[in-house]
């Protein structure tokens, strides 16, 4: 077998913009995939999260019980967990609901018709929170979204066993 | 009250030591004509237990029996053992009656002939009374706080008139410096040094401010002193005014102390009437006026720069120092700010000399200090001891120890910026330096005793909550840091905290202590730091075992975690 590292990406409460940014690496993706195998992602057809993953990129905030279950599972099976983008790092736009109660929000969006959460979608947590509020995060990549260049640097460094230094190239927002 | 003859000629003005002597003699004569004097404490604690009714019924009882000529019933001051209010003293003899009800009037008056009412009698040979040294609370309770003549009869205003008529301002400051008196507001800055800084400052206008914005939880020394000795506070301020070249003084007192406000306002009017405040005091060029400014209860207004801002009509926000008020204070002028108790010590220092004062206390902490003893201690109330007295003596001898067979755990001194001192340090002498080395603070004199029924994490949370509520919001570390620290303490007491939270709490303590703008923020972490220093095991019990050893956060042996919330 190859000595390729395993790479996964997951998508919690976010807009998928960070995944788009991953795709924006264009042909550099091919070079990266020489060193790493994408074993789980919304971008590939794989139903269950593998038992051991070297690097997982997390997009999105933890907003629902489903998100929470997922991130705990992913954390337990991942060596290096990366919070990718502002939603994962700060809870960003999903957190804008936090000053209000879940009940108020549901009433507002459904115009009073559905004061309770419907049972066929995951229950909302009281607050949408950043990933590191629930599990240990190894690398933080702020940005909305982080640029393809930033993601490229993160992956190249991590695959080479280095901790990336992002302070001068990315920040909250843009 | 009749006014001495020759004072009338001067419109009641008292202008020299002879005038004082005349009044004192007059008072002594009056006293000699009386067989008995009955003092009913009219302090806040006693009044809240209907001492005004007791005063009324005693007065009525005396007049019913036609004894007004030989028995005087008069309002008096605090006896110290406020927990036993209402208190009544009968002179001569000094019998102290506690828990006196209006219905007891007849028995008390009977006792003047038949001997003490045993069921009401307080044992004044107990250490609570014998082990104290009364300097600030001189003639405790036996002076009617609203009569200037009562004050003059016990040596009042000798200090001011001596200073103004016989001493130069420099000589006054010299005496204060020699006395070794240090600021009683808590920080212990040498008073003489502060005075000479203001005296040296060159300005057309200078101000003298009395900080009576007492706000520490459990502290009521300043309130009691203002209620009992308003004239002495004013005398101290006037002496300061003379020494520094200031003509205007302000008493900044919280509006929650209505009785203290009333007394100080009455005293200002009384002193003015007798020429002891106002223009040309003692017929000299020296004029000094005092006005009262009410605080709206913000704790931070006890911080001197915030207090000044409040007097100026601004928000009570602290400013970075330097410049210190001594250089640029009220309206930009050199300003002296001292605590109530500091001013109270001034008149005796001038009257008896700085060296006399310096004989009391320790090498670096001179004089006495009043403490508001409260919490889990048998004798709660106001006590006064020489600095250098051990905590053990105050709590166990004077305070009578912890009641109901409980075990002493800690004593909290210094208010929200102070710390909790455990049993192993009970023999530490109380002075500015030793309290600081124990991780606490002298503060203005609050002393809260805690026993094994107190959870130290809960205590830290209480003080942090106080600081978070009282933070003014100007600087970020205090505004936000106190809230985060409170939240973590809350998590600890509900068993939701981890060791990482504890580490973050310690990091926040360090940061808030060293980066906050004023003493409120800088001191806010102290209750946490001191309880972590002495009672870390209690923190660990909450975090690791989810148990509260004292049984406060949950019953003893019960899990402190709240049951999971069912949606």
């Amino acid at each position, binding site marked *: 077998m190859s000595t390729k590292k395993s790479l996964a990406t997951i998508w919690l409460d976010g807009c998928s913009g960070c995944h788009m940014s991953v795709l924006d690496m264009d042909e550099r993706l091919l070079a990266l995939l020489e060193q790493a195998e994408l074993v789980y992602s919304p971008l590939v057809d794989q139903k269950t999260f593998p038992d051991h993953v070297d690097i997982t990129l997390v997009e999105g905030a933890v907003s629902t019980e489903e998100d929470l279950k997922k991130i705990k599972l992913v954390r337990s099976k991942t060596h290096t967990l990366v919070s990718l983008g*502002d939603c994962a790092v*700060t809870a960003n736009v999903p957190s804008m609901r936090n000053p209000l109660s879940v009940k108020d929000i549901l009433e507002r969006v459904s115009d009073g018709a559905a004061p309770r959460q419907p049972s066929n979608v995951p229950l909302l947590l009281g607050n949408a929170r950043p990933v590191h509020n629930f599990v240990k995060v190894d690398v933080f990549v702020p940005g909305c979204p982080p640029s393809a260049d930033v993601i490229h640097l993160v992956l190249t460094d991590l695959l080479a066993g280095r901790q990336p230094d992002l302070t001068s190239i990315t920040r*909250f*927002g843009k | 009250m009749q006014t001495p003859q020759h004072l009338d000629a001067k419109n009641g003005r008292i202008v020299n030591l002879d005038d004082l002597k005349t009044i004192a003699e007059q008072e002594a004569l009056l006293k000699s004509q009386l067989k008995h004097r009955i003092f009913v404490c009219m302090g806040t604690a006693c009044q809240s237990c209907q001492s005004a009714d007791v005063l009324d019924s005693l007065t009525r009882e005396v007049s019913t029996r036609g004894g007004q000529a030989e028995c005087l019933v008069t309002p008096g001051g605090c006896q110290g053992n406020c927990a036993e209010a209402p208190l009544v003293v009968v002179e001569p003899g000094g019998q102290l009656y506690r828990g006196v009800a209006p219905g007891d009037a007849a028995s008390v008056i009977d006792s003047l002939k038949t001997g003490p009412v045993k069921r009401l009698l307080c044992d004044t040979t107990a250490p609570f009374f014998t082990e104290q040294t009364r300097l600030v609370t001189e003639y405790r309770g036996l002076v009617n706080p609203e009569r200037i003549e009562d004050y003059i009869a016990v040596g009042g205003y000798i200090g001011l008139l001596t200073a103004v008529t016989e001493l130069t301002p420099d000589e006054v400051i010299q005496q204060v410096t020699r006395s070794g008196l240090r600021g009683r507001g808590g920080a212990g800055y040498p008073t003489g040094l502060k005075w000479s800084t203001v005296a040296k400052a060159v300005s057309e206008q200078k101000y003298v401010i009395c900080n009576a914005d007492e706000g520490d939880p459990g502290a009521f020394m300043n309130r009691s002193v203002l209620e009992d000795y308003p004239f002495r506070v004013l005398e101290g301020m006037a002496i300061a005014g003379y020494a520094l070249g200031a003509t205007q003084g302000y008493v900044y007192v919280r509006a929650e102390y209505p009785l203290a406000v009333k007394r100080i306002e009455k005293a200002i009017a009384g002193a003015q009437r007798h020429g002891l405040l106002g223009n040309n005091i003692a017929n000299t060029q020296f004029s000094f006026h005092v006005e009262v400014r009410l605080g709206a209860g913000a704790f931070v207004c006890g911080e001197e720069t915030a207090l000044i801002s409040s007097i100026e009509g601004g*928000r009570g926000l602290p400013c970075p120092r330097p410049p210190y008020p001594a250089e640029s204070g009220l309206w930009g002028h050199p300003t002296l700010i001292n605590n109530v108790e500091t001013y109270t010590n001034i008149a005796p220092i001038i009257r008896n000399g700085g060296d006399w004062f310096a004989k009391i206390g320790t090498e670096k902490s001179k004089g006495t200090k009043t403490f508001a003893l409260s919490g889990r201690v048998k004798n709660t109330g106001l006590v006064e001891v020489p600095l250098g007295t051990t905590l053990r003596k105050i709590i166990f001898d004077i305070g009578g120890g912890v009641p109901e067979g409980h075990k002493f755990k800690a004593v909290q001194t210094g208010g929200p910026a102070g710390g909790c001192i455990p049993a192993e340090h009970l023999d530490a002498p109380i002075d500015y330096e030793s309290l600081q080395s124990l991780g606490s603070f002298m503060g203005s004199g609050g002393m809260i005793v805690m026993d094994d029924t107190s959870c130290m994490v809960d205590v830290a949370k209480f003080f942090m909550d106080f600081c978070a509520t009282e933070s003014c919001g100007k600087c970020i570390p205090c505004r*936000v840091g106190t*809230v*985060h620290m409170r939240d973590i303490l809350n998590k600890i007491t509900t068993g939701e905290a981890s060791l990482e939270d504890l580490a973050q709490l310690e990091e926040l303590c360090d940061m808030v202590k060293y*980066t906050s703008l004023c003493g409120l923020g800088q001191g806010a972490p102290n209750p946490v730091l001191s309880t972590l220093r002495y009672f870390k095991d209690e923190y660990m019990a909450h975090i690791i075992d989810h148990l509260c050893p004292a049984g406060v956060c949950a019953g003893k042996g019960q899990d402190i975690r709240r049951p999971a919330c069912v949606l």
Partner: protein
Amino acid sequence: MRVVTLSINGQHLSGRNDESVLQVARAHNIDIPTLCQLDGLSTWGGCRLCLVHVEGNNKLVPACVTNVFEGMVVQTESERLARYRRMIIEMLFSEGNHICSVCVSNGNCELQDAAQSQGIDHISLPYLYPERTVDASHDRFTFDPNRCVLCTRCVRVCDEVEGAHTWDVAGRGIKAHLITDLNQPWGESSSCTSCGKCVQVCPTGALFEKGKGAGEMVKKNEFLVYLEEMRQKRS
């Protein structure tokens, strides 16, 4: 006034004794982070970002309000100061609702800049998520308190430069917040001259011009120094 010599970070410099450490440092291109300070306004000393070490003083001192003196030895960087500065920035992010990505000042924000320059890539303190209501009652400007850091630059510029004193702070501690007039909607303020100075000095997107979208609000506060100079010349 006289000239004194001092050292900042080992560099030997001179300055006037009526100048602050911050002024002297900036004149020599030594960067000290600030947030509440702004040239042309009175000093405030509230943000505590500019705390520095001064030899012989066991307390940290704010560079903005501490004047230089002969022989002063200043250290503006240390591991400890860096830690404190990061915590201050983190505290600001945690107490408000700062959503950089959708903010009018995204890319032109002093808080965002400060976070980056202090190397902050996430906020370790828990967010407090306060409920704060936007005031959009003014014709030309909007106040979004979610983004306010209480630096009080708006309060000071309105009082000291414009002379209107429309803005002030109400409440205490974590509940402290800006108000216009006696806590009336900004649009109904009788003292506001709509000069917009508050908007231009605001370091974040808390005050902005209506019609500006995310990232479109660029603040210009250079006018302050100019005004100060002109007023000094006239007086």
